[in-house]
Structures are given as C-alpha cells and as structure tokens.
C-alpha cells in the first residue's frame, strides 16, 4: 500500500510535527510512519524537543510581570490612544476597564449598553435567521450598514480569538439606525459588536464594562459612534477583543 503513497519529504515530516499539513496528508503520513521506524523516531525526537523547551521556559508565563515593564506601557502616551487621548485624559487618563475613576455612568451610556445587550440576547439565540446579510457577502454588508449609519464601518477580524464573522443586521437605535455584527466560535458561542450613534455625548470615552441582562457588555465611544461588545464571558478576553475592534476602526 505504501507504493501508492506520494513520497514523504523531510519538510513534510516537520510540517507533520507542527500540524501544518492538511488532515488527509497527515493521516497518510501517520500510516507511513508505522512502517518507517527511523522516521518515526525522528518525529518523536522533534516532538520531545518542543516539549522539553516548553517545560523549561513555560514557567516564565506564570511569573508576575516585572513592574518596570508594565510601567513602560503606562508611562508612554501610546500612539494607538492618541486619536482619543484628549477625551480619555479628561476622564482620568485610563484606557482600560478599571473604572475606579468613574462615578455613576451617565444614564444614556447605560441605556446604550442595554440596547446592545438586548439585541445580543434576541439575535444570538436565533438559529434560523441570526443575521440579515451573511458573511459571504461581507463587502455588501459593510457598505450597506456604513451607508445607513452614515459612517465608515468595518468588520473587525476576531479570528485570533476564535470568532468567525457570521454576518450582520440593521436595527433601530436610540437616535437612528444601529448595526449589529455577529461572530461565532467553533463551540457555537456568539459574540456581537453593536454600533450606533450614541444618544448622549459623542465625545470619545474610555472602555467601560457593565453587566446587562446577565450579559457582559464592554462599550466605548469613538469617532462619534458608540460601540458595544457583548457575549464573551471572560472579561480580560473581552477587553482584548475590544482593542482589536478599536484598532480596526482606527488604523
């Protein structure tokens, strides 16, 4: 049976170790290795090398980060924040969800978060029609919603967090239309990004975190648009995803 197999190259052995092969080819090579003990031993050795390196250096991941390094980030006025820096400084210089500096959030902001949460609860549970325009018409979706909201919108790439775009829909907001982009991970968990003209202050405002209807909502104001992310239960991850969304709209 091995005669029919495409010869296995050296590069392919490494790609096999590193999970870079298509499933089919990986399965072929696995079968081939059973009949080629020398190659199998090399594969085993390469894997062992990776494991040993991780055993050696992974403990670093659990160490507390030296204060000097976090201070480097805090000290600098980061270029990524520059666009909104003035307003963010006005609310305490924080660009984070550490909301110590915040007093009671303005009612309008809470209302915005609530609308986003409700939209999430309603449509994320929808099996048949979660979106109006599916992701395979992404360009059309972005163009259409940009036109309706009168602002240039984007569909941020959240694949780094395991979320693929499902599509989007138009919704009524407080002061006009709102856009909802829906994402989904392989476990079927859904994340929505809600974008609308805020009904209160349109000045840029820092990320703020709230729980609404049992959903974790992170929201902020930027470019005269209000943004809300709903659906990711891990707060730190939600923050990272929000940064990705922020970047998508700013770079």
């Amino acid at each position: 049976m091995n005669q029919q197999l495409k010869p296995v190259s050296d590069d392919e052995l490494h790609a096999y170790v590193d999970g870079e092969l298509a499933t089919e080819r990986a399965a072929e090579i696995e079968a081939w290795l059973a009949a080629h003990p020398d190659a199998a031993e090399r594969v085993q050795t390469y894997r062992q090398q990776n494991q040993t390196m991780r055993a050696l250096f992974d403990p670093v991941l659990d160490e507390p980060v030296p204060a000097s390094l976090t201070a480097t980030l805090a000290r600098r006025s980061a270029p990524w924040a520059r666009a909104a820096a003035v307003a963010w400084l006005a609310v305490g210089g924080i660009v984070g969800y550490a909301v110590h500096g915040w007093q009671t959030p303005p009612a309008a902001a809470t209302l915005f978060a609530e609308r986003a949460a409700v939209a999430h609860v309603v449509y994320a549970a929808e099996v048949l029609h979660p979106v109006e325009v599916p992701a395979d018409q992404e360009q059309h979706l972005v163009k259409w919603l940009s036109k309706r909201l009168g602002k240039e919108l984007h569909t941020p790439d959240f694949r780094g967090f395991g979320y693929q775009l499902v599509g989007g829909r138009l919704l009524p907001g407080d002061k006009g239309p709102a856009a909802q982009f829906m994402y989904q991970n392989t476990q079927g968990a859904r994340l929505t990004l809600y974008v609308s003209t805020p009904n209160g202050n349109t000045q840029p405002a820092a990320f703020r975190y709230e729980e609404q209807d049992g959903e974790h909502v992170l929201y902020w104001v930027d470019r005269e648009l209000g943004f809300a992310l709903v659906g990711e239960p891990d707060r730190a991850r939600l923050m990272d995803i929000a940064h990705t969304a922020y970047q998508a709209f700013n770079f």
Partner: protein
Amino acid sequence: MASHPFEPYIPRLRRYALALLHNRARADDLVQDTLERALRKFSLFRRDTDLRAWLFTVMHNVYVNDVRASARRHTEIADTIEAAVTTADDATTLRDIMGALERLAPEQREVVLLVGLEQLSYEETARVLAVPRGTVMSRLARGRERLRALMSGEASPYMRRIK
C-alpha cells in the same frame, strides 16, 4: 488588569526573550526595548495583522539590531532550570537542551523557538523574520537535526558554530 493592548503579550515576550538569551536581566531588557520600540511604531501596525505576531516581529528586529550584533551572551542557566526541574533526569535533559540551543546558529535558534516554543505557524514565523516560508522550513529542519545531534552526543560539545 490589562490596561494596554500590549500587556497581555508580555509574558510570552518574556518567555521568548529568555529562551533566546538565557539570561533574565538581559531578557527583560530586550522585552523593555521591544515594548518601547513597539509603542513608537504602533501607528504603523496594520489592522489586518495579528498583534502577537507583530510584537514578535518587533522583538526580532530589536534582537538582531541591538542584542545579537553587539553583546556577547552570558549564560546563567541555573536559576531558569531550577524553576522547571521536577526530577534529576529532567535537570539533565533541560540543561542539555539549553546548551544545545546555545550552540545553534542564531537564525536556526530563532526558528526552532518561534515554531516549537511559541507555536507560531510557518507563515507567521516567515513574516516575523521577514524571510520566505521555504527559508523557515530549511532553518527549522537544520536546527532540529543539529539539536538532535547535540543532545545525543553525536557532535562535539566543544564545537561551537562561529557566526
């Protein structure tokens, strides 16, 4: 609490820096320089790029320009190993691989670490190092074979590759 988009990536940058330099103080200096440069360059960050891979790219550039070019590496293997060791057998293997990693050509070491330790894909590694994918694969193959030879005692421990 994460307050800056770079912050969640600091532990991984520290791990990679330590694996490259085998010296804690110098590794954290490299992370510091990387963060500072990344802050200055962040406006050039493209939104379709993965932030993690981009930070590794910045670190690679700092490493090549500042660290690798100028300074000789000093090793302080002991404390790193101590943190990871559970048995005496482990200690020997870990010490071996650190010694072997040190003897790799720097460009092979980077590929072996980015793929094997940091689990970057070949594509990502190629982008980080600004080399073609084929170059990543050949450096990886040579680096791993050399590690294998060094760790099984096939190559002389005194044979150092001079760059």
